[in-house]
């Protein structure tokens, strides 16, 4: 997977961008459930999000409690810092 060579910042940024696109499409599709262009766009970005999430969480920890990384190394990694509001340079 090409994502394995990408940096933490690039992967996280992709999660944020794709995540935001999916949230916006979600709102739109709620009132336009038959819009084929919007459905295809959602599917495309969901696949992109899943690939980035798999690469990011494997190396940098869980984003949701359902990620495999949450229990990696026989420890509850969900609580490990930094939390998103603890910024040094940028968000998370």
């Amino acid at each position, binding site marked *: 997977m090409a994502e394995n060579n990408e940096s933490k910042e690039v992967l996280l940024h992709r999660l944020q961008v794709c995540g935001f696109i999916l949230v916006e499409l979600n709102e739109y599709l709620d009132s336009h459930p038959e819009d084929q262009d919007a459905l295809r766009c959602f599917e495309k970005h969901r696949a992109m999000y899943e690939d980035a999430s798999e690469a990011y969480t494997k190396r940098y920890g869980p984003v949701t409690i359902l990620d495999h990384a949450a229990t990696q190394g026989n420890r509850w990694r969900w609580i490990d810092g930094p939390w998103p509001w603890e*910024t040094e340079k*940028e968000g*998370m």
Partner: protein
Amino acid sequence: MWVYQKKLQYPVKVARPNPALARVIISQFGGPDGEMGAATRYLSQRFAAPNDETKGVLTDIGTEEFVPRCYKTTI
């Protein structure tokens, strides 16, 4: 029901943290015009919604009302 994602929705760089400013902004979360009130209203109103589209809109917008809280604490 709800899932918390451990990332900010949009990347932010806070050059100079300002707790006093943050306190003012956070105070806007409550009260009649705040996000908390809006979230609670939408999430309650969806139970009386007449169709699936409306239930979806109220659920999802109600959920999104909690996002600004994360940015206020980051400041």
